[in-house]
């Protein structure tokens, strides 16, 4: 069963890698915020799967904290315009 968890973890890692590779090209101004969303979901999934693969129950706590931080970071990123030249936003700036 451990092998299955590791395969799933590799699959998730490939997903994150491809997505971030696409976002690095920055086709739209919202790409960095989409990356935050992506880490909020795929990152949590990866941590949960790794916690099971490594038999480390504390990984679930790490996943919970990452979920919390992703929420705060995402909202703050949208509201303050941390991510540069999103034209005409002005919210908080």
């Amino acid at each position, binding site marked *: *069963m451990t092998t*299955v*968890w590791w395969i*799933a973890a590799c*699959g*998730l890692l490939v*997903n994150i890698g*491809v*997505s971030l590779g*696409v*976002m690095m*090209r920055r*086709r*739209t*101004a*919202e790409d960095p*915020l*989409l990356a*935050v*969303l*992506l880490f*909020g*979901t*795929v990152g*949590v*999934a990866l941590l*949960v*799967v790794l*916690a*099971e693969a490594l038999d480390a*129950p504390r990984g*679930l*706590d790490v*996943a*919970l904290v990452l*979920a*919390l931080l*992703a*929420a705060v970071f*995402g*909202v703050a990123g*949208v*509201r303050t315009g941390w991510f540069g030249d*999103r*034209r*005409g*936003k002005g*919210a908080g700036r």
Partner: protein
Amino acid sequence: MTALELLSTVLLAASLFFFTAGTIGLVRLPDSLSRLHALTKADNVGLGFVVLAVGLQTPGWPAAFKLLLTWLLVLAAATNVAFLIAGSVGRDDAPPDDGSEP
């Protein structure tokens, strides 16, 4: 491999399918709103399947409850952040970004 492990494997495969669908949407779709759509819907369903798969293998109720809590938190957070991003895109009066460098 017991029945529960088999079920977990199937659920993991389903989750990988949905995550991959989200990634393909992110790669293929042209504008921010469509990519937001692909990212939030598909990835949150995928996370739900992962949580189910892991929850079937966890020994006690507290861990399963923590997993459920994590999923609900991610759902709420992703929904709110997606609405915020979409709202800030909708307020933008500038022409759509075609990817060309300024």
